[in-house]
């Protein structure tokens, strides 16, 4: 059969082609309102050419077969057509495909003759679920045509008639009686009683006939939901909540161009039957395009209200929560439980027990076509065009939203740009119907942005699962116990009976194809509210990874071939197990299992049974490393799905499942932060690309068993097959998906020296050394090691070490050197870690740090022998010898010589600064000096005669501005950078500004009075004089205040202050009061009597003039002499409760009462 002879019939194309054929019996469905699936069914019936809802024969001999489900790439539309065409006895090239809409006549059958209650596509159940029913439909239609031939030619008995290639011929002579086209109208009325299935060998079933939907998928004509265009249609999108579990608070003004703003039920909510979710999105209808609608939805301002649980949806919190449930959650045991696994595990010795705790993340469906639906609502009807896997559910939801009866709802199924389980949900249809309901009479296409598609998904549940196994002395598994912690969509939708197990949590574990003498699978419900749904292969997608990984751990631990291990688990003679054995045998052959892969690669295998006992075994061949990532080169798959209706499509489905499962295993996982999904588009949610797709070799075993599923069973084994290959390749067991989150162990790329005795310090170079917990030399742990950086580590060869590889262990794993370190005998080499300074002229004393320095016999600077002193085992000092040149420093002991990696620069380091000048050449403290020179970039200090400037600015590599620091004295200016110091040749003169005296207090008093002098530039004060008489006692309190005692012999006159810059004199005079000889002070009272440090206290008494100190219980306080009878003072910090004392040159007074400072 040539490619492209078949045509799938879009409704538009269907109408044209049927009418174009002339005299057609049937009317197709145009993609406009009013001409939908149900109209077509009625039209077909009255035209009289329909042999039931599934089969329509055209006068032009075309055969149109209805597909009742969702064609999402799995090819089921072709598979079901093959079944019908086989029974109908028509030529495949005459077959056309019509996508059926919502129609109870198209419900999924429960057996060969009975229809169920719902139309849905999932569970790998299309071909196997419809097979028997459609065989009957096709066989009945064929017999109707034969009976019609008899009816039109009564002389020819039915017994002499048979159907051949769309015609009815006489058995006796092979002559043509009539074509189907000529018989169709009559056939409708026939009621044959001799319906029987066609017997093998089949013409079409089992053949890799080309798919009916592909021609339209290579020229852009296939109509997906997003492609629907209706007259007068407007475009809409939805502003979705940024977090999972939010409702709409307030809605801002509509952006321009927006025709309607419609609050709609929240997306991605668990759908509880018969109820709509709360308002959680805002529909925006525009007169623009889908792009305009998405822009408008983005720009409209909406406030959101969290649900109580929203913030709990946080990956870090959820991991902790699951770990808690793993250790102490209440479990329900799944049925069947075999024997007593707990007892067997307890009885097994420790070295015959295996245990692994595994996890998988939440997964998004990531269908290539974002969620969308087109809807026309009128007062009396609602018509939907949607890519849906659930026509019945969609219709029921639309009835709920519109309030219309189910009979008023029409659902037309488009092609699906991927389904993957996402379109088993109807949240996007509910939103689209709600928007269209607000725009009655106008068809509305509602399309989600890709970002909203990722944010509002029903995720594949995360699962944390621990599996324990016991083996006997020969390595045979005697017991398996799995404990699963996993949330449940059944729980979320209120359909989980308390105390029972959600089968999707344990699928693939409880019904694994192996015989374990003791087996327990238990489930701990995690009630977390992350919205959940079915993802390709459902529970098998994670549980196969857990079980098949654990089996591989046992195989490695017991040194068994993993395929042999599985054979031993199957060996019980039942048909399923014999089929599994055949799969394993075929896998050995097809994967060259017994021949080692090329160097640098390893193989891993896994198998599973799912979806109607389809058995799949897979071998993955992998190269790479944790650090560089892994590449899956090829995958060998053996599948026994009973009967392959279309082997080509079975292979395509295997390729699809392997690629999708590979991408999930390697890279995928949705994460959440306080309710916000973190991965919102394909830039962060990584999909496989062509260069990452493995070559896939699929072998189909035709076992003759009953039909099993095809779309999903290929997926579960790929993740464990890859993880098992990685374990063999790297020795590292990946227990958590995705594999891209595997912690990267340290890598030792080189080490030096490569040999030496115990005590040698070895420098390792590599990656991932941070946090190293152990370094071993041929298995002997180093007692001393230091992580210098993530890429360098030094370790000392420990006592007892022998020649062998070096290994570094961190929390992320262990890295082992490729080469061996040779342990020799003798004295370990000196180890040189650092030296300082890095440069200097001959005579410079250099300090060298390291280890093994005790027995040093020689130190050389670039070969020139230096005098040295051993300070300790880890430090020595050496003097740069005369005549030394720039170069490395070597240190020798009887074990040998070690040379530094860095050079010591003899002379001035060319990278050190030079100071060529400065301006101005003198100035006071606080003035700015501009220094010129070179290599000023990176300046670390500027010093004035050795006093570091606290403020400097590097203007350029040749200019620095510095402020003369307090305390600086005249001298040279130096500039320092990391390489050294440059010093000016001339000196900077620090000028001292002349003091000024602005005031003093008291302004009069007897000899001995303490006078507080205020003014400026009280720096470097050398003398204070009262009318020329030098005070013998003065204190510079600050640059603006001095206290001085009026010296004996002073007469009334001006007060002067002198420093090296000059003398400042007051304008007013201090009056020496005559004849006064003051006495010792007295204290009569003080107020207040208590208060903490800082409290101001007023003392009353006598002879306070000339007071030199005030103390609180011995602690000096600041004070002000207000008059000879009054002092104000401040309670000093730390003074205990006690008396206050006042001292002047004549004596001390102590208060009678204690002052309470609150201390002591």
């Amino acid at each position, binding site marked *: 059969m040539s*490619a*492209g002879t078949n045509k799938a019939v879009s409704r538009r194309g269907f109408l044209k082609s049927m009418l174009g054929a002339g005299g057609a019996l049937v009317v197709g469905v145009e993609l406009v309102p009013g001409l939908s699936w149900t109209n077509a069914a009625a039209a077909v019936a009255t035209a009289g050419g329909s042999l039931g809802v599934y089969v329509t024969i055209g006068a032009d001999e075309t055969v149109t077969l209805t597909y009742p489900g969702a064609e*999402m*790439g*799995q*090819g089921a539309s072709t598979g079901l057509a093959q079944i019908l065409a086989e029974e109908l006895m028509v030529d495949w090239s005459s077959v056309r495909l019509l996508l059926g809409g919502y129609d109870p006549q198209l419900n999924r059958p429960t057996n060969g003759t009975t229809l169920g209650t719902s139309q849905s596509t999932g569970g790998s159940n299309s071909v196997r679920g419809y097979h028997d029913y459609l065989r009957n439909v096709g066989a009945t239609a064929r017999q109707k045509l034969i009976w019609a031939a008899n009816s039109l030619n009564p002389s020819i008995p039915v017994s002499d008639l048979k159907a051949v290639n769309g015609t009815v011929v006489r058995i006796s002579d092979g002559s043509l009686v009539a074509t189907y086209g000529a018989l169709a109208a009559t056939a409708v009325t026939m009621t044959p009683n001799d319906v029987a299935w066609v017997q093998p060998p089949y013409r079409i079933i089992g053949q890799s006939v*080309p*798919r009916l*939907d*592909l*021609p*339209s*998928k*290579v*020229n*852009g*004509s*296939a*109509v*997906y939901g*997003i*492609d629907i*265009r209706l007259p007068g249609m407007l475009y809409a999108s939805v502003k979705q909540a940024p977090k999972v579990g939010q409702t709409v608070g307030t809605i801002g003004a509509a952006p321009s161009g927006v025709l309607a703003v419609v609050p709609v039920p929240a997306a991605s909510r668990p759908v509880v039957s018969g109820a709509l979710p709360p308002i959680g999105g805002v529909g925006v209808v525009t007169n*623009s*395009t*889908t*792009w*305009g609608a*998405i822009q408008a939805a983005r720009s409209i301002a909406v406030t959101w209200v969290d649900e109580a649980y929203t913030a709990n949806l946080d990956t870090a919190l959820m991991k902790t929560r699951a770990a808690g449930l793993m250790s102490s959650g209440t479990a329900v045991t799944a049925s069947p439980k075999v024997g007593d696994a707990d007892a067997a595990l307890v009885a097994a010795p420790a070295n015959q027990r295996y245990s692994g705790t595994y996890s998988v993340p939440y997964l998004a469906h*990531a*269908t*290539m*076509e*974002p969620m969308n639906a087109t809807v026309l609502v009128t007062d009396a009807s609602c018509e939907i065009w949607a890519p849906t896997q659930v026509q019945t559910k969609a219709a029921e939801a639309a009835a709920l939203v519109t309030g219309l009866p189910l009979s008023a709802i029409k659902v037309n199924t488009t*092609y*699906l*740009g*991927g*389904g*993957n389980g996402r379109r088993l949900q109807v949240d996007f249809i509910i939103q689209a119907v709600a928007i269209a309901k607000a725009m009655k009479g106008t068809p509305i296409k509602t*399309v989600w*942005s*890709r970002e909203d598609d990722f944010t509002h998904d029903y995720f594949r549940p995360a699962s944390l699962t621990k599996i324990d196994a016991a083996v006997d002395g020969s390595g045979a598994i005697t017991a398996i116990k799995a404990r699963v912690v996993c949330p449940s969509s059944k729980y979320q939708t209120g359909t989980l009976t308390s105390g029972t197990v959600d089968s999707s949590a344990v699928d693939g574990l409880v019904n694994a194809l192996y015989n374990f003498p003791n087996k327990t699978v238990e489930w701990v419900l995690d009630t977390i509210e992350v919205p959940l749904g079915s993802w390709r292969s459902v529970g098998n997608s994670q549980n196969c990874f857990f079980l098949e990984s654990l089996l591989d751990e046992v195989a490695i631990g017991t040194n068994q071939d993993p395929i042999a291990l599985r054979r031993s688990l199957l060996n019980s003679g039942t048909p399923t197990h014999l089929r599994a054995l055949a799969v394993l045998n075929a896998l050995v052959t097809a994967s060259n299992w017994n021949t080692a892969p090329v160097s640098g690669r390893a193989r891993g295998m896994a198998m599973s049974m799912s979806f109607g006992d389809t058995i799949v075994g897979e071998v993955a061949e992998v190269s790479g490393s944790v650090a560089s990532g892994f590449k899956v080169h090829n995958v060998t798959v053996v599948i026994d799905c009973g009967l392959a209706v279309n082997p080509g499509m079975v292979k*395509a489905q295997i*390729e*699809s499942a*392997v*690629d*999708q499962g590979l991408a999930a295993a390697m890279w995928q996982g949705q994460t959440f932060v306080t309710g916000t999904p973190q991965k919102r*588009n*394909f*830039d962060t949610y990584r*999909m*496989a*690309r*062509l*260069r990452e*797709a493995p*070559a*896939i070799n699929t072998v189909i075993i035709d076992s003759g068993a009953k039909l099993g599923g095809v779309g999903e069973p290929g997926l579960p084994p790929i993740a464990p097959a890859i993880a098992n290959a990685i374990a063999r390749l790297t020795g590292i067991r990946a227990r958590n998906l995705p594999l891209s989150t595997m912690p990267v162990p340290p890598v030792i790329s080189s080490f030096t020296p490569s040999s030496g005795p115990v005590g040698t310090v070895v420098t390792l170079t590599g990656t991932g050394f941070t946090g190293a917990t152990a370094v071993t030399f041929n298995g002997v742990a180093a007692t001393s090691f230091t992580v210098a950086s993530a890429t360098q580590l030094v370790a000392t060869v420990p006592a007892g070490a022998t020649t062998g590889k070096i290994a570094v262990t961190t929390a992320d794993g262990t890295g082992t050197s490729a080469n061996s370190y040779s342990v020799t005998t003798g004295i370990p080499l000196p180890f040189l870690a650092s030296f300082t300074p890095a440069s200097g002229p001959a005579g410079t004393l250099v300090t060298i740090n390291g280890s093994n320095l005790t027995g040093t016999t020689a130190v050389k600077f670039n070969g020139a022998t230096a005098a040295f002193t051993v300070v300790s085992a880890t430090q020595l000092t050496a003097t740069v010898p005369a005549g030394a040149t720039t170069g490395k420093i070597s240190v020798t002991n009887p074990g040998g010589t070690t040379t530094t990696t860095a050079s010591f620069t003899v002379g001035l380091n060319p990278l050190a600064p030079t100071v060529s000048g400065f301006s101005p050449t003198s100035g006071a403290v606080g003035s700015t000096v501009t220094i010129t020179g070179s290599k000023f970039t990176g300046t670390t200090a500027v010093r004035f005669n050795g006093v570091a400037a606290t403020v400097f600015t590097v203007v350029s590599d040749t200019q620095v501005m510095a402020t003369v620091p307090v305390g600086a004295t005249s001298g040279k200016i130096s500039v320092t950078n990391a390489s050294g110091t440059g010093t000016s040749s001339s000196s900077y003169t620090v000028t001292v500004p002349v003091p000024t005296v602005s005031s003093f207090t008291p302004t009069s008093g007897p000899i001995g009075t303490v006078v507080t002098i205020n003014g400026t530039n009280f720096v470097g004060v050398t003398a204070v004089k009262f009318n020329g008489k030098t005070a013998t006692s003065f204190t510079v309190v600050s640059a603006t205040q001095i206290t001085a005692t009026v010296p004996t012999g002073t007469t009334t006159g001006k007060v002067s202050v002198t420093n090296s810059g000059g003398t400042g004199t007051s304008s007013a005079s201090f009056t020496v009061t005559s004849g006064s000889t003051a006495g010792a002070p007295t204290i009569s009272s003080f107020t207040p009597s208590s208060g903490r440090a800082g409290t101001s206290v007023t003392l009353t008494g006598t002879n306070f003039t000339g007071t030199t100190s005030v103390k609180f219980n011995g602690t000096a306080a600041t004070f002000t002499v207000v008059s000879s009878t009054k002092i104000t003072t401040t309670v000093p910090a730390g003074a205990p409760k006690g008396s206050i004392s006042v001292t002047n040159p004549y004596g001390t007074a102590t208060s009678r009462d204690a002052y309470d400072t609150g201390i002591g």
Partner: protein
Amino acid sequence: MANVNVSLTVNGQQRTVSADSGEPLLWVLRDRLGLTGTKYGCGIEQCRACSVLINGQLEKACDVDLSEVAGRSITTIEGLSPDLSNKLQQAWITEQVPQCGYCQSGMLMAATALLASTPKPTDAQIDSAINNICACGTYARVRLGIKRAAGML
């Protein structure tokens, strides 16, 4: 952003579009010109479902503004051939490449551009030329389809 009138050639036909100058070509093609074979997958230049040829060059239509295509000649999947006679379309059917098919318009445009510049591509050249995302896992068959169209099988 302002409304502009832009004339361009699409699959050999002269078209004039009046729309926001910043509207991506993807949506001009799909929603204004009715050429829905070019698909929206991500809108951020990741998936390449929107791939078209502009003056023979492979471009992502989600990242080309209407204002940038004035006077340009666009080829979309609908322009490959009306009757499936294009050698890549033929090869795609022979190898049964598409599954859901949503990414395949972009795949075929990328393959068209590849074969135009490299009539007999190596595996490595195919690896680097085809960066389209296919969620269905058709990659192995895309490779076969390209080789078949190139006469290499």
